[in-house]
C-alpha cells in the first residue's frame, strides 16, 4: 500500500506537532509556511522562568522545531502559501506558490560564518533550527562567499507546485492584535508604549526592558473583550503571560514597581495557580480599564484611569507601558476559508468542520491550533495530538503496528 500523504498548512507549534506525529506514523507530510523558517510566532518568545519554571511552554516550541529538523522527514516548503485546491473522490490536489529559500536548510551545516559576514544583520538564527535571511538583505553576496558548503544562493525565484494529498491540516495560527488602530492606547506615537509581542522579542533577546525604568505598567485586555475594537472574545493567554513577564522582570530588577490594570483576572488551568499566589503580592493590581494613554512633556506615557476605591479619575506616569495585546484571527483567515470552503465564526476564527474540538469532516480538511480559537502553547501541543489522531483515523492508518 502506498503511504498516505498529508499537507500541513502553517508551521507554527501546532503545525509542527501535527507533522511530527503524522510522520512518526508513517504518513508522508508536506509542510507549508509563509515564513522562511518553521516555528511561527512563538519560536521568538523568551523563557519566563523566574525562580522556577512557570510553564510558559516556550521550550516546547524549540523542542518541536528540533524534532522536525532531526527526526521528522517532512518535506518543507517555506516562504510558500497555498493558492488552489481541487478535490476528486477522496484525493485532493493542492497548488502551492513557493519562493525558493535563500539558504538551503538541508545543506547548511550551521557554522555561522554567514552571520559574521553579513554587514546588514540580515541573517538570523531560529532556535532549534538553522538560519534564514530577513528583509534587510541587500543581496551584496558576502554570505555566499563565506559559506563553506555553498548552501546560500541569493537568486529569488517563484514557482508553483501541485501536490496530490489525502488530507489537509490547517494550522494557520493567529495575528497579534495591533493596538495602533485605536488611538486611545497611544501605541505607535510613543516608543515607550510597547505591546506584549514586542516584549516577548525582548525577552527572547534577554534584554527585558529597553530603557532604564522605575515604574512599569501592564494593561490587560487590549484587543480582547472589547466591542469597540471588534474583538469580543477573550484571548485566554494575556493574563498569564503578563503575570509571567512581571514575575521575570521583578527578578531581573527587584526595585521595579509594576502596576497591572485589569478587568477580570482570567485564571485558566492548573498551571495558573502555581505562580498566581507568588506573584500577586509582588505587583500592584488595579481593577480598571484605562481611559487613555497620553504622552507628557518628558515623553513619558501617562495612564489615565478611573480609580474605583476613590471613584475619581487619576493619572499616573510610567517609564514603560506594556499593552497585553490579544490574539486576533490570522490575516489571511478569510482567504483560507474561501480556499478550503470553511466557515468563520463571529470572532473571525475558522470553524472546525466537525463537532468535536479536534475537527474532522468527510472532505479530509482538519483544523488545528490557534486558527480555531485562542490557545496557549501547551494547549496547541495537546490539540495537535488530538488532531493527528483524527487524521490517522480518517485515513485508515493503524495507530498501532
Amino acid at each position, binding site marked *: 500500500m502506498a503511504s498516505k500523504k498529508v499537507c500541513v498548512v502553517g508551521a507554527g507549534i501546532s503545525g509542527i506537532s501535527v507533522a511530527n506525529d503524522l510522520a512518526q506514523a508513517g504518513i508522508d507530510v508536506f509542510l507549508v509556511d509563509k515564513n522562511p523558517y518553521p516555528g511561527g510566532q512563538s519560536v521568538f518568545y523568551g523563557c519566563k522562568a523566574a525562580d522556577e519554571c512557570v510553564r510558559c511552554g516556550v521550550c516546547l516550541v524549540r523542542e518541536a522545531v528540533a524534532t522536525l529538523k532531526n527526526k521528522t522527514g517532512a518535506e518543507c516548503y517555506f516562504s510558500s502559501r497555498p493558492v488552489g485546491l481541487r478535490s476528486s473522490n477522496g484525493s485532493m490536489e493542492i497548488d502551492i506558490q513557493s519562493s525558493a529559500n535563500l539558504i538551503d536548510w538541508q545543506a547548511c*551545516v550551521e*557554522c555561522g560564518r554567514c552571520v559574521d559576514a553579513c554587514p546588514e544583520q540580515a541573517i538570523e538564527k531560529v532556535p532549534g533550527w538553522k538560519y534564514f535571511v530577513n528583509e534587510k538583505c541587500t543581496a551584496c553576496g558576502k554570505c555566499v562567499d563565506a559559506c563553506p558548503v555553498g548552501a546560500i544562493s541569493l537568486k529569488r525565484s517563484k514557482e508553483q507546485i501541485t501536490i496530490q494529498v489525502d488530507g489537509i491540516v490547517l494550522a494557520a495560527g493567529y495575528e497579534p492584535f495591533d493596538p495602533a488602530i485605536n488611538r486611545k492606547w497611544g501605541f505607535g506615537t510613543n516608543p515607550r508604549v510597547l505591546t506584549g509581542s514586542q516584549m516577548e522579542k525582548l525577552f527572547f533577546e534577554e534584554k527585558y526592558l529597553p530603557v532604564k525604568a522605575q515604574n512599569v505598567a501592564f494593561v490587560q485586555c487590549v484587543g480582547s473583550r472589547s466591542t469597540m475594537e471588534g474583538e469580543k472574545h477573550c484571548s485566554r493567554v494575556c493574563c498569564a503571560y503578563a503575570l509571567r513577564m512581571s514575575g521575570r522582570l521583578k527578578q531581573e530588577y527587584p526595585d521595579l514597581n509594576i502596576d497591572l490594570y485589569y478587568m477580570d483576572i482570567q485564571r485558566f488551568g492548573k498551571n495558573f495557580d502555581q505562580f498566581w499566589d507568588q506573584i500577586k503580592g509582588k505587583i500592584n493590581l488595579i481593577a480598571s480599564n484605562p481611559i487613555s494613554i497620553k504622552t507628557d512633556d518628558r515623553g513619558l506615557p501617562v495612564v489615565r484611569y478611573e480609580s474605583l476605591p476613590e471613584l475619581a479619575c487619576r493619572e499616573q506616569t510610567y517609564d514603560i507601558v506594556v499593552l497585553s495585546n490579544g490574539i486576533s484571527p490570522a490575516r489571511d483567515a478569510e482567504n483560507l476559508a474561501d480556499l478550503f470552503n470553511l466557515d468563520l465564526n463571529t470572532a473571525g476564527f475558522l470553524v472546525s468542520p466537525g463537532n*468535536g474540538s479536534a475537527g474532522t469532516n468527510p472532505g479530509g480538511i482538519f483544523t488545528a491550533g490557534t486558527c480555531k480559537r485562542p490557545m496557549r502553547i501547551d494547549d496547541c501541543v495537546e490539540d495537535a*495530538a*488530538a488532531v493527528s489522531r483524527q487524521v490517522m483515523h480518517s485515513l485508515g492508518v493503524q495507530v*498501532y503496528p
Partner: protein
Amino acid sequence: MNSTRSIVAVLCDHQCSPNGPVQASQLQKRLSESTSIDKLIVLQKACQDQEKKLKNIAGQKVLFAGCPYLEESGFYTRAAENLGLGPGEMLVTDVKSSIFDLYESSETIEDNLVGRLESLGRLLADSVAVKEPPVKLKRNVLIFGSGLSGLKAALELSGEKLSVDLVETEDQPVAPGCLAGGLNAPGQIEELTEQARGSEHVAIFPYRQMGPIQTVEKGFTVSFDGAQQREYGAVIYAPERIEAPAEEVGAWNLTRLYSRIMEGHSIKGRIVFILDREGETAPEVVRDVLTAAKAIKERSHAEIWILLKQVRVALPGLQELYDLAREMGIIFVKYQALHLKNDFGDFQIDGQDPQTGAAFQINKPDRVILPGRSGLSQAAVQVANSLGLRLYNDTYTQPYSLWRLANESNHPGVLVCGSARGNMDASGVAEDAASVVLALKQRLRGEGIIPVEHLASVDKDKCAYCLTCLRVCPYGAMVKNVEDRVAQVITTACQGCGVCASECPAEAITLRNLSQESVLAGMHKLLFSSI
C-alpha cells in the same frame, strides 16, 4: 548479528572547523597506523559528496570520526540508513573544534582521540551483540474510572483492536451521570456506555478491593477482589472528580443541583449562586453554573442571582453563555465583601458593591447554591499512590511531564486522562482521550520508554535542609520531608540530570548509576563525555 564484518573508521576532514584540515591530516596518519581499525576512509569535502563514497563500505561495521556540524545536520543518521547499519554498529565521535583550542599540544589530543577510537573499536567488536530489542508491552489496557474520559478512551482504544478493562470501585455506580456528562453533553454518557458494553474488546466491571499494582517486565499485574492476577501493558488513570458538599447548612452544591434538575424537579423562587467565595472559582465551574442557571430558567419562572467577584470568560463559548444568560434575565452582581448569615437554612446575604461601595442585601432566598471544591476521591488517591503518580494540591495529579505533552507520566505505561489533570469540559475530555491514544501508541511500541540511567539520591546525614535542590530541580522531583528535615527524591520524576548534585552546597546529593551492567550505556557515556 554479523560479527565477521570488519571495522572501518571514516574520518571526515574538518573543513568547517577553524583548525580542522591540519589536525585532520595528522589524525589520519595516526589512525592509519592503528591496529584495531581495519580500514580508514577519509572523506574530502565531507559535506558535499560523501554519500557516494560511503557506498563502497556497505556491509561493514563503521566507526565515524567527524566534525560535529555533520552530526547536527543528520549526516551520520542518513549514512547509517543508507548502509543498513543498526544502532550498535555505528558510532560517532564528536570531534569538536573547541577541543583543539583546549590543549596546547596537538599530540595529546591525538593520543586521546586515537586511544578513544581504538577502545571503541574493541568495545564495538566485543559487544555489538548486546543490542536489545525494544520492550514490547502487552496489548491490553486497564482503565481506572468509567466516567466520560474513561469511556471515551476505552472506545478509542477498542477501535484500535486493543482489549480494554474498564474498572470502577463498587460503591461508585458504573458510569454515574457525572457533571460533565449531565447537562453539558446530554445523553452522551448513556450512549457511550451502551457502545462500550456492545464492544467485544471492552469489559466493564466494578471491584471491591484492589491488590497492589506490581510492575513486571512487560507491564503491570493487578488482582481484583482476591481473584487471579491480571496482566496489563498499560494503565490509564481516569478517575472522577467529586465535589465537596456545601459548607453551609441548607445550601446545595452543584452536584446536588444537577441531580435535582436531571430528575425533573422544577426549582422555583429566588435562587442565589455565590461564586468566588473561598478562593477563586475556575472557569469550567463557572460554565457549569451558567448551564445550570440556564436550565432552571428554561424550566420554571425562577429569579436567579449570580454573585461573583470577577467575570471569567477564558473558555471558548463562555462569553456567549454570559450574553445568553443576561438576555434570559439572570442577574449578575459583582461583590467586594460578602457576609452570609445562616439561621438553619434561612439565609441573609449582605454584600458591598466594589465600584460604589454601596451595600446590598438579599433576604431569605429560596435556595443558596455554593459550588464546592472538587477533588479526587479517597479510592482514587490510593490508586494514584500505588501507580506512582504525584498529586498536586491534593486535587490534580501532576507527574512531572504531564503538562508537556499528551497525558504522559514518567512511569512507563501509566497515562492520565480526563479531569484528574484539572478541570475539564466535555470537549476537552474528547481531545484528551484522543491524545492519550496517540501517547499509548508510543508506549506500546516501546518507543516512548526512555530508561533513566541515573537517579539522584540524598545523603540524610549531610543534608542541611536548605532546599536549594527544590528550587533548582527542573522536573519538580525534589520534595521536603518535614519530619526528618531532609530533602527527598521522587524517583519516578527524577530524570538524572544532576543539576541538584552540582548545586547542593552540602554535597549531600549524588547520582546513582542505575544501569552499570549495560555495556551500551557505558559506551554511550564514553562517547559523549568530554575527552
